[in-house]
């Protein structure tokens, strides 16, 4: 029988249980952060349980961390969560990229960056954007805190095997159109729950031609379409990315020959196939309060079809029939596990070079990790951003979800490279418009979104 890559990895990890029922799956790697782990460690202590494999867990601090003056956390509860993770990892012998550590960063940025994320693995984390790691040909998904505790105690997790969707992405992207636009385009067309109950695999010539950072952007946002996992077959691009990283295999040759078994035999093996051509794809901008409420830059916002649309328009203060170039942008955010990597910053900096953001706009640049920040500074990106009028910050999740002090004020429209435009996501009353780093950079200059295919690139 023909198998998907997902079937092969899943099958290798089953400890017990029958297909169709919840099965006990081995977890190769768990990533931890300060917000969704404290109750899990507390649960272990209450029952006097140990961490089964401290060596298969890795922690960092990202959701809460300030992006200015990182050691001066004014919010006492944030401080408490950060101190609690430091204590928990010390007590249970788990590696930690703590505050100020050179390896610190957004959990989904540092996993790949450190070479922890590898093909054929099952990877979990108490964060829905764990799907990101699937870009390496792994099964990676977000879990809740009870599951975090379960993985700490047993290094396994109970899961019912999802069905699979293959998304065939083919064609050549126009200049000014990026991986972010592909995933936003797919979700806008297929809806925010098309992937519920499914594991997604992206394949096709467009995917083959993508670098790892683009692949991560694509897999990262698959959760916004309801699928908790998105993956891509590992290839030479994947292997080259992993080689020489801190926790890469010592014997890469042996590893690569093992990893090459992970591929989908034929698209027939998927339960469902979606076809997505990118030849005519335009840059996308979200207008509403979920990531499916998005339009190509040259198209008007849709008519009101239901109560949800009506509420969304009321919340964002926009009208059906208007276009993205009419949104008055007053805040700009570059960063997040979706688009906070070095290549994203390079693309944004290219647009901003020798230009200035529009008067009255606040623009935050928050690199995805300390390492990215260092590399960006080495090639002078910080200077370009600062000269353009942006604030160059310390790494973390920042204004993607505003758990630290970086928030978008009520009623303000923010052009954001992040992943969610839910009501209140970036701050109470904030109005988020998701787009690619290049689109956001252009919006910072003009104070509104423009069609970068025509005017800049």
């Amino acid at each position, binding site marked *: 029988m023909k198998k998907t890559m997902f079937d092969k990895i899943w099958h290798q990890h089953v*400890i*017990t249980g029958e297909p169709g*029922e*919840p099965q*006990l799956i*081995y977890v190769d790697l768990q990533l931890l952060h300060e*917000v*969704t782990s404290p*109750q899990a460690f*507390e649960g272990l202590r209450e*029952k006097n349980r140990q961490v089964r*494999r401290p060596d298969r867990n890795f922690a960092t601090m990202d959701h809460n961390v300030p992006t200015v003056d990182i050691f001066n956390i004014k919010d006492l*509860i944030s401080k*408490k*969560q950060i101190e*609690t993770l430091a204590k928990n990892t010390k007590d249970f012998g788990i590696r930690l990229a703590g505050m100020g550590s050179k390896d610190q960063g957004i959990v989904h940025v540092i996993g790949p960056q450190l070479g922890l994320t590898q093909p054929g693995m099952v990877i979990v984390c*108490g*964060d*829905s954007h*764990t799907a990101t790691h699937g870009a390496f040909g792994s099964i990676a998904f*977000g*879990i*809740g*805190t*009870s*599951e975090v505790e*379960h993985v700490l*105690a*047993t*290094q*396994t997790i*109970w*899961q*019912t095997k*999802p069905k699979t969707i293959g998304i065939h992405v083919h064609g050549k992207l126009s200049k000014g159109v990026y991986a972010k636009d592909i995933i936003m385009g797919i979700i806008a067309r297929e809806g*925010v*729950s098309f992937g*519920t*109950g499914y594991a997604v695999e992206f394949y096709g010539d467009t995917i083959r031609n993508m670098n790892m950072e683009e692949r991560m952007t694509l897999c990262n946002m698959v959760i*916004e379409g*309801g699928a*908790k996992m998105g993956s891509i077959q590992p290839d030479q691009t994947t292997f080259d990315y992993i080689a020489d990283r801190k926790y890469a*295999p*010592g014997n890469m040759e*042996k*590893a690569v020959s*093992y990893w090459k078994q992970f591929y989908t035999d034929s698209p027939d093996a998927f339960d469902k196939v979606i076809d997505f051509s990118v030849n005519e794809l335009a840059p996308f901008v979200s207008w509403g309060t*979920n990531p499916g409420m998005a339009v190509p830059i040259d198209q008007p916002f849709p008519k009101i079809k239901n*109560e*949800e649309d009506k*509420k969304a328009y009321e919340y964002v203060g926009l009208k059906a029939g208007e276009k993205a170039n009419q949104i008055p942008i007053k805040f700009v955010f570059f960063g997040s596990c979706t688009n906070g990597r070095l290549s994203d910053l390079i693309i944004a900096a290219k647009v901003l070079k020798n230009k200035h953001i529009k008067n009255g706009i606040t623009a935050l640049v928050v690199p995805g990790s300390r390492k990215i920040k260092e590399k960006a500074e080495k090639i002078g990106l910080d200077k370009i951003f600062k000269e353009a009028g942006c604030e160059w910050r310390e790494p973390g999740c920042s204004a993607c979800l*505003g*758990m630290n002090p970086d928030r978008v004020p*009520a009623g303000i429209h923010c052009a954001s490279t992040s992943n*969610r435009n*839910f*009501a*209140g996501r970036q701050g*109470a*009353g904030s109005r988020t418009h998701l787009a690619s780093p290049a689109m956001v950079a252009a919006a910072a200059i003009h104070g509104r979104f423009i069609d970068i295919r025509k005017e800049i690139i």
Partner: protein
Amino acid sequence: MKKITTINSGVIPLMRDNIDTDQIIPKQFLKNILKSGYGRNLFYDWRYKATSKEANPDFILNKPEYKQAQILVTGENFGCGSSREHAVWALKDYGFQVVIAGSYSDIFYMNSTKNGLLAIELPKKDRTILASIPAKEKIIVDLPRQQVRYEKYQFDFSINPLWKHKFINGLDDIAITMNYAKKIEAYEKEIPNFN
């Protein structure tokens, strides 16, 4: 986990689709290292007025006749977005025992099974009937028989037998898994080493 078998309670209708976990419990309330105390901030942005932070009298949770209800009836794709288990803790802490939706996000559903929040799927026509029941009326959610009953109506729902067994017996997942320790150990010996 507390046992759940049969629940006899009023219903709170909140018939919107795609209610995400940011709406169920906004991020400012995730800064806690405990599992309790989230109920007062459940549906915070809908439940309290934006400026004064007083209870919004128009929101259904604030209406006195719905105060005792333990069953939430809602739309499609409930609990989408962030994986925060705090969403389930908030619903439980508020007093909900059961949610009846058209569908759930996968992560929210798994979280509900860990905390004794019974998440039932019913089609829209059944939920529309349940949502229109007067506040003072009660319905029966019968987990052993996998039925929701109200007067002449009887809606059957499906649930995985393993989750059902866990709910009815209030079992702890980790204790169940510990029974497979030998198998886990055997598996670990077979993991390839590339060093």
